[in-house]
């Protein structure tokens, strides 16, 4: 059984605002499936004495003191932005015209 369906890939693409053609969808679903199957092999070695984990290091409570550090200048902050105006990041229209009712 496939680890990820074509429909799921289409859904993820939609959530990620990616325009994916039918053709690309077929290719991506196949490739992602191979990757996920490979990763799933890790699950085969799980044992009762290994708790599931989200972090590779056994650390907790890495906290920082509430002390102000230096910031970037607005010029530095905006230097990597595709576009800027009025010292702000300039982004394209957020809502599509068809949903902007």
């Amino acid at each position, binding site marked *: 059984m496939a680890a990820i369906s074509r429909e799921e890939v289409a859904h993820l693409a939609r959530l990620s605002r990616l325009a994916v053609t039918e053709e690309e969808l077929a290719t991506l679903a196949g490739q992602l499936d191979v990757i996920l199957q490979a990763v799933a092999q890790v699950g085969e070695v799980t044992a009762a004495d290994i708790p599931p984990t989200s972090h590779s290091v056994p650390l907790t409570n890495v906290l920082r003191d509430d002390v102000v*550090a230096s*910031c970037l200048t607005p010029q530095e902050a905006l230097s990597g932005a595709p576009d800027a105006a*009025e010292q702000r*990041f300039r*982004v394209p229209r*957020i809502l599509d015209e068809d949903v*902007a009712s």
Partner: protein
Amino acid sequence: MTTTLPAYDEVVARYEPVIGLETHVELGTNTKMFCGCPTDFGGAPNTRVCPVCLGLPGSLPVANRAAVEATIRIGLALNCSIAQWCRFARKNYYYPDMPKNYQISQYDEPLCVDGYLDVEVNGEPVRISIERVHMEEDTGKTLHVGGATGRIHGATESLVDYNRAGIPLVEIVTKPIPGAGAMAPEVARAYVTELRDVLRSLGVSDVRMEEGSLRCDVNTSLNLPGEQWGTRTETKNVNSLRSVERAVRSEIIRQASVLTAGGRITQETRHFHEDTGDTTSGRSKETATDYRYFPEPDLVPVAPDPTWVAELKAALPELPRVHRRRLQQEWGLSDLDMQSILNAGAVELIEATIAAGATPTAARKWWLGELSRRANETGVELADIGATPKQVAELQGLVDAGKLTDKLARTVLEHVVAGEGSPAKIMADRKLEVVSDTGALTAAVDEAISANPAIADKVRGGKVAAAGALVGAVMKTTRGQADAKTVRELILERLGVQG
């Protein structure tokens, strides 16, 4: 299409509302949740940003200890259990108010769970169950350009300032609150009011709703008695305590009109409008709720040391409800009297006035009497009336010292409110002090006696009541600045009559 909305009373007689509240509080820490950028307001756009809060590649967030501590203290004050181990989570969404395309939040492992807050509605206790208290980060500010009046609809582009992105935010979520019936709007308001007071007493936020450091989303649904809870809507943009109440009321009426007409409620976000007091539809939730949460890989779990939690619990300040009860006892007030002080928003003012030296009775008299009346007339909050607790205490001190009569004190207070300075200064500047100099007063009394020989004779003959006319004459010459009782005693003494 115009429809006549049903009356609120009819609606709540037929339907049972269920409400729920999600409150976001901006913490008053020095720095952001995951980086050292300052949190102060008023900076030029994008001057409070760094690689972490801009989500630049290679940067790593580190949680702010003070923010974790504040969240635990909030949880403890709301009677929650504090998780022994919890994680942050990524909430993925594509909207440019966060530069990372996700917000760091908490999902199925909040820091605090299962608490409650006791509030009072019309003197009756109501326990609001708290589902969770969790940590997250605030978003940037987006300016929409090209559409009508800054709205996102019709905008051709948007400009983003990330100064607020990453400000520590705590979300407090209630469990659904059924059974409030017609009182649901008041319950919602009482809850947010009490929560605000608790947060203020903890000193974790400046809790200003108008400025957005305390924000409230209100969930509302209706059902017929005995039936399942209805579909709920989430009303956003509720920016004052009054609006919380109005938003619930208007949403109950709106939903009832839809249901009564045979329609169904759409699960959606609605926006409250301060000017009209009603809500309009925002984005539909049905297509927007897939946030693909997963544990935040860049932040390690938080596992508060139970000793630390116990210390924080032991150091919690007296909470507002307990504080109010203690004050009521100290001041010797009935429930009703205390309620009127609460309704007038005068607790802290009266407390400060007493601390400045006035008696509870006197402090209450000024704030609930003259000053409340003026506040109502001019439509300002009592706290902004222009008189301070210290000035009110000083004024009462002048009355107690016999330098001002009650009437003169009211005149002085008017000038205090007008911003003319301290009561003593106003009294001196405007020559309002009681004429207590016996020489001057005796002269005025003698003058009144010799100007009214017939009345004086009546009094000498035993008609003591006639002395009132002489008192009036003296008050007139002293421009009301003498104490009437003293004047009366002096007149009787001069005429050789026992009072």
